[in-house]
């Protein structure tokens, strides 16, 4: 249970029912706050040292972290992604998604991911944030031959994300993106290739994906668009 010292104080002053276990707990700690003697602080610190208590700051941060680890999607990735470092970057993507409505926190976390994991780590996180990994896994499942191969394919796309995904930036030019995507496809012949653009980059991604679709005859194309994003999935098909 997360208890906020400030909110407890407010609850007490607002006269919440003592029958509520939440307000009871709240009032209990509000009193502790109001007369936080050195003895009280000592007791809290002892609990901290005994691993029974943690002092947190913003409850929303904890809620986001919990979702990174406890959501169904997180559990799914935990099952199929065995590389701990990559899995952590995937979790960061779940956190980014959770923060999408809070632009400042979203930007702050993006910066921290970039600082620690460079552009590749940020791209892995964005790959998850935008739901591309969802869809990508759906396509993999469609052609799955074995569980081991499935796991290997997921890791392959994440570890070598720049060979499988083109992240269009808002400052990108359509012609450059089409050229870059063509170069990546020609060099790596990926079974699945993704062109993604979010926010101001969505329009450029859309134009790039449509031009690329005309050029890449060996791929079936699926276009997904959302509120401020456009994603193209190019899936290679072979004629026999």
């Amino acid at each position, binding site marked *: 249970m997360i208890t906020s010292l400030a909110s407890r104080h407010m609850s007490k002053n607002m006269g919440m029912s003592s029958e509520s276990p939440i307000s009871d707990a709240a009032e209990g700690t509000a009193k502790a706050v109001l007369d936080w003697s*050195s003895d009280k602080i000592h007791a809290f610190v002892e609990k*901290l040292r005994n691993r029974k208590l943690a002092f947190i700051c913003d*409850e929303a941060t904890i809620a986001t972290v919990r979702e990174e680890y406890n959501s169904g999607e997180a559990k799914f990735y935990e099952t199929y992604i065995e590389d*701990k470092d990559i899995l952590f970057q995937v979790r960061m993507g779940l*956190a980014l998604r959770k923060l999408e409505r809070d632009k400042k926190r979203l930007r702050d976390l993006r910066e921290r991911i970039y600082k620690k994991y460079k552009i590749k780590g940020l791209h892995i996180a964005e790959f998850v944030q935008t739901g591309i990994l969802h869809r990508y896994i759906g396509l993999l499942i469609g052609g799955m031959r074995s569980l081991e191969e499935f796991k290997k394919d997921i890791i392959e796309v994440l570890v070598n994300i720049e060979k499988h995904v083109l992240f269009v930036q808002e400052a990108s030019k359509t012609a450059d993106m089409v050229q870059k995507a063509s170069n990546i496809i020609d060099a790596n012949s990926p079974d699945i290739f993704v062109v993604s653009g979010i926010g101001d980059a969505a329009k450029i991604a859309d134009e790039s994906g449509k031009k690329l679709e005309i050029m890449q005859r060996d791929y079936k194309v699926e276009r997904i668009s959302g509120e401020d994003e456009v994603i193209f999935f190019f899936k290679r098909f072979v004629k026999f």
Partner: protein
Amino acid sequence: MELISLKGTSLKTKLAILKELGYGSDGDYVLRSSGEKVVDKYIDIPVRVDHMVILPGSEVILDDNELSISSYVEEYGNVL
């Protein structure tokens, strides 16, 4: 595990908690007894008193952000 939010708590209370743990502050940042700023070991930035979390496990003092706390979970287990 019981979680106590320090958000909205007075500076005086936070400083008292830090003192009990053997740390100090210059009013902005958390300081070690030697006077050095405490650095969030996961993202390598000094920890501000108004943005600190104190987690079990050798009294880990971190900045309040998703990356640091997730890194803590990775190291110490999903205890939160």
